[in-house]
């Protein structure tokens, strides 16, 4: 159960979702992945570590570098689950709250 929860925390982050998209069709090295982001390389490494720990990414040794590819089986598990739906509503309701707080202060 704990592991499942971690998976959803993993995909809750926009950078990590972007990483998943990048490696969706091809294996990429950490360097090649990092080149797609403005964030510092160690930050990207941290994201890769989290995604790997949650088994959303698989590591593969290619020469001197490690490359990453998507773990389709795990992605399917996530796709079946409720969390993105909850987050959609959470986002919507957060918006409602901020709109209404502004509305209140204007009055």
């Amino acid at each position, binding site marked *: 159960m704990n592991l499942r929860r971690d998976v959803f925390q993993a995909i809750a982050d926009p950078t990590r*979702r*972007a990483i*998943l*998209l990048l490696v*969706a*069709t091809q294996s990429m090295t950490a360097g090649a992945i990092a080149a797609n982001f403005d964030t510092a390389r160690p930050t990207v490494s941290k994201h890769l570590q989290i995604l790997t720990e949650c088994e959303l990414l698989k590591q593969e040794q290619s020469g001197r570098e490690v490359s990453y590819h*998507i773990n*389709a089986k795990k*992605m*399917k598990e*996530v*796709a*079946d*689950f*409720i969390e*993105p*739906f*909850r*987050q*959609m*509503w*959470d986002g*919507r*309701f957060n*918006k*409602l*709250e901020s*709109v*209404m*707080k502004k*509305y*209140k202060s204007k009055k």
Partner: protein
Amino acid sequence: MEQKTKIHAEDGKQELTITREFDLPLELLFKAYEEPELIEQWMGTKVLKLENKKHGSYQFETTDPKGNKHGFNGTIHEFSPNQKITRTFEMEHTPFAVQLEFLEFEQLTEDTSKLTMHVVYKSVAMRDQMLKLPFAQGINMAHNRIQDILRKLK
């Protein structure tokens, strides 16, 4: 950390419940569902029509980043200010059947309130499909490449 928005969806049932506690007085929470200008702001949709009364109906329209318009509509069955709204909800031009929504608004304290949304779908399969929609959409919007992956998974 306690989550503010909760989803309760039992396996094998064609309904689900969404609950959310707001840092807003009850009146303000309800207003967010009542006033077209406010609905437009928080839902990011255009309100073409909204009749807040029994036998009334509503019609919303959103425009996606590509400029495509998506229509939503429904009929209002019950409208009790600061208490509840019962309505149907339909996404136009989609395979999704109309759904029934019971919205209940409660005061928790002077400054906080709670919304309970009970949604009933046409079938268990329809509910489960709706649950999966945001995941698929989020990914598709970001990139079309993943579509191939999802297709392979099915």
